């Protein structure tokens, strides 16, 4: 019984890991298009008003004061619910994103990408 459970878990992990790879790749593409212009890591030195960072990254640096990475792609604590809530409801200056822009399937891919390093 214990061995069967172990095999089921391994099989499940294997399937999950394979699917996640494709999803993460798609998620990175969606992230690069829709999120990176504000939440990316690279900015011009004299970016307007931004303390040297893009708007989203700059805002999170002010918010977290070094307790968490300001660059979303470096985070290891993000959850699916957090990401979906912020994307669909907006937060402060970040507006709502509609399904004609980022579909539910694409949002799942973004979740897969941003939670790929999540600490278990």
């Amino acid at each position: 019984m214990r061995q069967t459970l172990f095999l089921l878990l391994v099989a499940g992990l294997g399937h999950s890991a394979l699917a996640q790879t494709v999803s993460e790749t798609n998620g990175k593409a969606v992230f690069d298009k829709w999120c990176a212009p504000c939440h990316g890591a690279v900015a011009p030195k004299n970016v307007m008003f931004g303390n040297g960072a893009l708007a989203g990254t700059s805002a999170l640096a002010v918010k977290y004061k070094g307790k968490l990475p300001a660059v979303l792609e470096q985070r290891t604590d993000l959850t699916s619910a957090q990401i979906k809530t912020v994307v669909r409801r907006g937060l402060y200056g970040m507006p709502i994103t509609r399904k004609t822009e980022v579909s539910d399937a694409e949002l799942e891919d973004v979740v897969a990408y941003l939670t790929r390093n999540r600490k278990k």
Partner: protein
Amino acid sequence: MVLPPNVSEADFSRALGEFRSAVGASWVFSSDEDVALYRDSYSIYWGEPEERVASAAVAPAKVEEVQQIVRVANRYGIPLYPISTGRNLTYGGSAPNMRGSVVVDLKRMNRILEVDEKRAFALVEPGVSYFDLYHYIQERNLKLMLDVPDPGWGSPMGNSLDHGAGYTLAAFRDHFSSHCGMEVVTPDGDVIRTGMGAVPNSDSWQDFHYGAGPNVDGLFAQSNFGIVTKMGFWLMPMPEAFLSGTVTAPRHRDLDALVQEVSYLEDLGLTGMPQYGSPIAQASFGPGAGAMASLMQNGWPSTEAVERFVTAQKLPAWSVQLYFYGPEETVRATWQATKRRFGKAIAGATFQDGEFLTLPIPREKEPTQSDKPRLGIPSLEVFNMVARNPQTADDPSDGHADLFVTIPRKASALWESSRILFEAHREAGMPARQNPFSTPFTYYSRCFWTGTTVPTWRDPAKNARSRALFQTVMDRCAEHGWVSYRTNPAFQDLLVSKYSFNNNSLLRFQEKLKDGIDPNGIIAPGRYGIWPAKMRKNRA
């Protein structure tokens, strides 16, 4: 659930069914959760009864589907509100102008139909963003430069239809003026093409914008006479080089002379959008903060006090950055001529060479390139202006609404309008950022815009204060004949009431057109104050 006004739940349900037949069930959004995605993220009425929320949204993929949607709306008397990319933040975003409207979300109509490198034009659908068009041009190595607004995730079509503007030469940065030809679904479901597009087999739709007879294109901007489904734009041939330079003027009273010289360059088409600045104002964001606060503490200072302040600060009162596009020989020669003219007109003017670039910018250098929009590269970096920062760390706003008025290119108008803004902020108990060194925006080359961004919140009490500020500034500026060129839907009735020559004859004329073209009043009721006859009582 919100219903369109004067439409029964049963009829609305039937209409939704017909919308689904037209575009497919997955492209009609009617659940509360989905409709909430069409709220204006920056609404100045967030959570209040006056918030302009949709009843549903429908997302067609082609013009024939738009026609079917319009016909269904006519059958049931359902108001439609078209959006292109829906990113017109501060001016309503993806929310309708009137509560209960069905949003026609054109984001799926995202084809770049043609880009002609030799004749320098593009023909696009509504859902194409500046990013999309930029990448299309870049991937094909076409020698064309876009003129992009800030931020760059909006659409060429939507931006131009709301009279948006960019940063390069005057011929391109007035985005409506640089369009050429459009296709429109009219309120009765017909399709028209303007200019040469009305000629079967014409191959000059994007070359000549007038065609013959009345030019009707202007009817479809900031209005509600149809749904635009295609639009052409003239593009700038990729210049060989870009050069910037900065001029400073020492005294506060030098502004008119500076403006005159800048306007000379502008009106000859020799510079991109001039960026006025003030080294003194810039210092007030850092070490000079105390001195500026002291200058303004007892209200707007006298001319003499301002000039004494300039002397004491030991900084130039004004600066202007200029941007030259063209072959290297001509941009360098224009900068030389600029130095000669400004040096003669303004005693003590100084000059600083800026960045020289050969174009296009190599792709690998783009992420770290500054001044992206001035180089035709779309960006969202402008959001830094409103993002949480050390000053707003504990209470960042949830958005903003732009409050800008059009004034002539004159120092006296700039100072008086800045004073109005300063005093209105103080009276409202809000931080007043204006001072005698406030500078104008020159998106449109023949006038100045002056104003500010007013914070919006998801807090009704704070929003009420922001709305009151709008009312005060718009009323006081209008006494001088200074009004906005564009505003949030919450203030469009107020704005058009200021265009009141001859008992509002302009608006009355527009209403006659509305009644004739859209008798059922289904397209964007209330947009820029134009209400259909049956709803004129709705006017704020």
